[in-house]
């Protein structure tokens, strides 16, 4: 039986939802409407004049092969970041779940990186892989591998993926750990008595039971890699070399705030808005069905 509270009048419920409505209106609907409006113009940077171009900005963007390529870059980047942050997190959570002593310390240590801001994480990784003074690039040099993410697009992509995924592992770890703790012991014990070894129990029993969490994390991580990795990319590669790490959100920034092309930047924001909308629809359609509260 679900519990429902019914209000008698209209005033109280309206007052209760008002703060949320106001916040959404001020921080979401108004700016979003502004972005859509602006995307129809080519304005000059100072706002002295604006030329109405209709969908001209979108046409300009979609006919630009570098913009289209940026979708692919974003997809590759997001998938890699998601995988690199979820798989190690799950592995660590499974190990931590088996610990009997000291799991508190272990847990705390694992959560730490989450406290590091993306831009700072970017700088840390950049120092390690700096082609001149970086510790890691020096060791790679000793092993005969010439690390140069300044010119090599693949290496640059690898570096921003690792730097973005690193802090995220902690976040995912927390969720996986909580999910693992909620798997009923009796089921696992029954399987153990039937002779299933650890990894078999994991893949046939535990993993299916934690899929709602995994799916939730999948969507959240993709959204993260779409929007919140800006700091990492800005500090490490600034989108280079040759646009190999220019993801959609970075292009919004560089066109708007470096190029002063606010029309194109607004149009890109609108396109991103639709991408987020799509991701949210997927999230609601699938997660709502699978997650049991």
């Amino acid at each position, binding site marked *: 039986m679900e519990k429902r509270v019914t209000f008698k009048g209209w005033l109280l419920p309206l007052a209760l939802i008002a703060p949320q409505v106001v916040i959404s209106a001020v921080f979401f609907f108004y700016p979003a409407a502004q972005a859509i409006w602006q995307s129809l113009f*080519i*304005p*000059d*940077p*100072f*706002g*002295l004049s604006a*030329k109405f171009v209709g969908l001209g900005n979108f046409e*300009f963007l979609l006919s*630009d092969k*570098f913009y289209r390529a940026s979708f692919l870059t974003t997809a590759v980047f997001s998938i890699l970041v998601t995988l690199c942050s979820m798989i190690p997190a799950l592995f660590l959570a499974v190990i931590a779940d088996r610990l009997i002593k000291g799991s508190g310390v272990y847990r705390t240590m694992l959560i730490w990186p989450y406290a590091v801001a993306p831009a700072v994480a970017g700088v840390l990784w950049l120092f390690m892989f700096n*082609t*001149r*003074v970086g510790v890691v690039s020096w060791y790679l040099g000793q092993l005969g591998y010439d690390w140069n993410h*300044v*010119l*090599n697009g693949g290496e640059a992509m690898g570096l921003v993926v690792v730097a973005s995924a690193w802090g995220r592992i902690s976040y995912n770890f927390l969720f996986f750990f909580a999910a693992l703790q909620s798997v009923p012991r009796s089921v696992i014990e029954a399987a153990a008595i039937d002779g299933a070894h650890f990894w078999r129990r994991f893949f046939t029993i535990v993993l299916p039971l934690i899929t709602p969490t995994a799916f939730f994390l999948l969507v959240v991580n993709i959204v993260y890699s779409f929007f919140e990795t800006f700091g990492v990319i800005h500090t490490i590669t*600034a*989108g*280079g*070399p*040759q*646009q190999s790490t220019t993801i959609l959100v970075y292009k919004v920034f*560089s*066109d708007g*705030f*470096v*190029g*002063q*092309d606010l*029309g*194109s930047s607004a149009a890109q924001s609108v396109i991103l808005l639709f991408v987020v909308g799509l991701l949210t629809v997927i999230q609601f359609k699938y997660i709502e069905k699978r997650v049991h509260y």
Partner: protein
Amino acid sequence: MKKYLFGALAATTALSPVAATAETEIQFWHAFTGRLGELVAAQVEEFNASQSDYTVVQSHKGNYSETLNAGIAAFRAEEQPHVLMVFEVGTATMMAAGGAIKPVYEVMAESGADFDPDAYIGAVKGYYTTTDGQMLSLPFNSSTPVLWVNRDAFEAAGVDPDMDLSTWENVGEALDALKAGGEECPLVTAWQSWIHLENFSAYHDVPFASQDNGFAGLDTELMLNGPAQVAHLSAMGQWAEDGKFIYTGRRNEGGANFRAGECALFTESSAGYAGIKAEAEFDFDVRPLPYWKAVADEPQNTIIGGASLWIMSGHDAEEYKGVGEFLSFLSTSDVQASWHQNTGYLPITGEAGDATRAAGFYEQNPGTDIAVIQMTAKEPTANSKGLRLGSFDQIRGIIDEELEAIWSGDKSAQEAMDSAKERGDTLLRRFESANR
């Protein structure tokens, strides 16, 4: 504690109406931190102390791009400063914003301050004047690229450090000899687009863009895929492939390598002087930027990089009078000479250069006059007056990307520059339609 008390006192005094009417406040937004920030603050303090009618308030607003953005955002919110520092690549953006700026020549004429446009070095002011000679913004910090030589590295590789490095042909031979002598980083550069394309074109008197590099109109197209530029970049690409030219990044990352003594030759701004002098534990030389003998019999002049001061519109006449006074103060030969000597930036007036020479500075610091000579030896041509291209910050980004394709061997110099032209022209057309 005492400091805070005084601060609080000063704040309350400033808030009282009596004090507020006594002096007219002038806002000055700039992009300098560290040593340069201190020097700017000192200039402002000196001006404030020199008279009692105006108070200039300087504030740092981030790097060049961020400062420009702050100015633009402030203008949109009608909170714009009086004086805004804008880097040279933002010049076209500012010029196109006719309603947002008040040209310097107008400010100076109205303020009645002494102003002689001819006192400014042609190659410096040319960047910021209209085609009919009206100065739009006041050059503030300007530098030009030169060749830095690590003499110790030359000797270690068994190459004569005094050899003639005035042409790229000779530099090519030096690179061969350095590489053969075991040098691992014969050549490194900073600001690749600025030095190896923009300055390269001016120095060889070939156009970088049509319409006099954008000076004559917004309908300009890039011409950086010409034979001279392609030949130079092909040679550089070959050197990169042979490990004679080491690419370190789009900005001045290479400076760290050079200052640590790891590289033999370094093409970098003359303003790199302060850093190199402070850090280098080896003998170094400053030489003029090399040119290709095969392209030009003798070099034209190089162009500047740096920033200028733009005056924003929408303030009172009385305030503009103060701005005029401040700009005159900045142009005085004492202020300019000390700025030039402290930073390695060029003096903006001929007089300041002469004062520096007379004080014996160039003899005590050999090579510091190379940049001045290189810029002023010849009267600038249409190809060497500077660049005035819209969205140029972004176009530089495109050029950087295409140059990276050459250095990594992904594209030939011709392919890369053709692509840079095509992509850059698209942005120029957008800028044209936004500002028509």
